[in-house]
């Protein structure tokens, strides 16, 4: 197929799979397109920590042979993808974004990687992240990841590279991990779609842990349909993860076209109309609400009084879990951590038990509040982030006061952590741009294991908007 390589690079994963199946694009050709773009663009974006060109081309050649021989093809056959460097990849180093693991080469793939490969995906490489998926990294050991819409701005985290690579056309789709917003935040800041599935829907085996009760692998892509197909590939019980659910996996892509007519959607007042939400973000989200109403959704405002505390509740619990994970290295290799990571984990090591108990009990109340709302509503709606991507410099330097802690950590996390604390599925989907050209994102939260409704509503909105079709400057 003769086409502008940039046009090929920005095709959806499903379009690529269809062209491969129809023998209009070769897996080798599309893999070379992405490898060339990574070589040309990634020195300034820093989406990737490790690229595996030889392995990718070897896989692509095998995929091409399978097509030419008429062998059975998986749903993602010939689709080049990349993964957050938090997931183990056999024979390919997996750093978790830290110098501590810079030479770590796993012998086994994470279950999610095995499943994406079985679906026909071609692994391009490992993507940058905040150190150990924590957030607050000051000096990225493998290069500062940058937002493709404005290189001086934050791409979001912790799955930073997963958002950048999809937005900039450096892969067709990616995998991230969302403990407290780490898929949805980079999706929001980079202008792509990101899904946090229901906790336990996707195996965590082979993913470096942060918090056992919240860690959730999730896909990022340029369309909701792609996210649905990636979820289809990775969802389901895994004997290697005892906490993975045995609940049957439904079909996700089929119902996408069912629309939103009659769906009841609750607009979360505290997060949509609250004082922390930027006016441009609020207006874009409310325009999306009007769009969903025109499509037949029935909306109403609801109040969830505990969500403003969600960021702090999350950090009291997840950070304490993280301190447990890191307790040996904190004592034996403190100098190998980034300063921001080390201080966050050291602080978490000292959280009083009474405070953790208060947070754990408040989490249970928050879950009950959300469950009650979703007993009569199909979806909850709010911004994914209170503002568009801030400048990288805004989160640099030592913390010199407690107000700074609230500003850097609690406020923005209160938009993405309610779904994490409640174990609910949530999607981030582009819903506009600021006047300065940075993406804005809508968040839809659904009932446990009802990813199908979340995806269906996001798809219906996406079909009515043009935001997903824009490309960041300098990525042609």
């Amino acid at each position, binding site marked *: 197929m003769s086409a502008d390589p940039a046009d090929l690079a920005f095709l959806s994963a499903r379009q690529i799979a269809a062209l491969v199946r129809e023998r209009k694009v070769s897996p080798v050709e599309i893999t070379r397109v992405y490898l060339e773009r990574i070589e040309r663009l990634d020195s300034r974006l820093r989406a990737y920590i490790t690229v595996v060109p030889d392995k990718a081309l070897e896989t692509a050649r095998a995929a091409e042979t399978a097509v030419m021989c008429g062998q059975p093809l998986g749903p993602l056959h010939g689709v080049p993808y990349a993964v957050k460097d938090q997931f183990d990849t056999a024979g390919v180093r997996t750093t978790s974004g830290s110098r501590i693991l810079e030479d770590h080469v796993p012998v086994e793939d994470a279950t999610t990687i095995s499943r994406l490969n079985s679906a026909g995906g071609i692994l391009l490489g490992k993507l940058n992240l905040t150190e150990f998926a924590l957030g607050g990294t000051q000096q990225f050991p493998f290069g500062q990841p940058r937002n493709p819409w404005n290189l001086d701005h934050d791409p979001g985290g912790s799955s930073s590279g997963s958002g950048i690579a999809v937005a900039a056309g450096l892969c067709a789709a990616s995998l991230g991990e969302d403990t407290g917003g780490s898929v949805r935040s980079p999706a929001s800041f980079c202008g792509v779609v990101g899904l946090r599935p229901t906790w336990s829907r996707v195996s965590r085996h082979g993913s470096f842990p942060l918090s056992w009760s919240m860690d959730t692998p999730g896909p990022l892509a340029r369309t909701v349909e792609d996210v649905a197909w990636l979820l289809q590939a990775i969802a389901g019980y895994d004997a290697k993860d005892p*906490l993975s*659910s045995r*609940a049957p996996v439904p079909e996700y892509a089929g119902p996408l076209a069912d629309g939103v007519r009659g769906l009841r959607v609750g607009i979360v007042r505290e997060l949509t109309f609250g004082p922390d939400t930027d006016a441009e973000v609020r207006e874009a989200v409310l325009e999306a609400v009007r769009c969903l109403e025109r499509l037949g959704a029935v909306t109403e405002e609801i109040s969830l009084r505990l969500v403003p505390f969600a*960021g702090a509740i999350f950090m009291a619990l997840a950070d304490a879990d993280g301190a447990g994970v890191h307790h040996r290295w904190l004592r034996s290799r403190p100098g190998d951590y980034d300063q921001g990571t080390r201080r966050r984990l050291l602080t978490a090591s*000292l959280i009083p038990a009474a405070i953790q108990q*208060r947070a754990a009990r*408040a989490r249970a109340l928050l879950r009950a509040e959300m469950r009650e709302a979703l007993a009569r509503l199909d979806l909850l709606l709010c911004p994914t982030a209170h503002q568009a991507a801030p400048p990288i410099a805004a989160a640099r330097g030592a913390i010199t006061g407690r107000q700074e802690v*609230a500003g850097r950590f609690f406020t923005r996390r209160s938009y993405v952590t309610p779904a994490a604390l409640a*174990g609910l599925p949530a999607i981030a989907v582009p819903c506009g741009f600021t006047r300065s050209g940075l993406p804005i994102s809508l968040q839809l939260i659904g009932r446990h294991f009802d990813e199908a409704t979340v995806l269906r509503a996001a798809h219906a909105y996406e079909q009515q908007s043009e935001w997903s079709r824009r490309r960041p400057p300098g990525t042609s």
Partner: protein
Amino acid sequence: MSDLTTEQVGALAAALGLPVTADDLAEMTHRLNALIEALEPLAELPLEAVEPVPGLGEASAS
């Protein structure tokens, strides 16, 4: 709960065998006091009647 001082945070860290610098201590104290302050209003809720579990049964039900 009253504010923790850097001396108190340092003593806690030392008791746990955590290697911290003076700069670490100053920032850790801000972080810890901010977290405690942010969660203070939750003490007004009827938390004693709540089971502090993450609700795994519900999420993993088949």
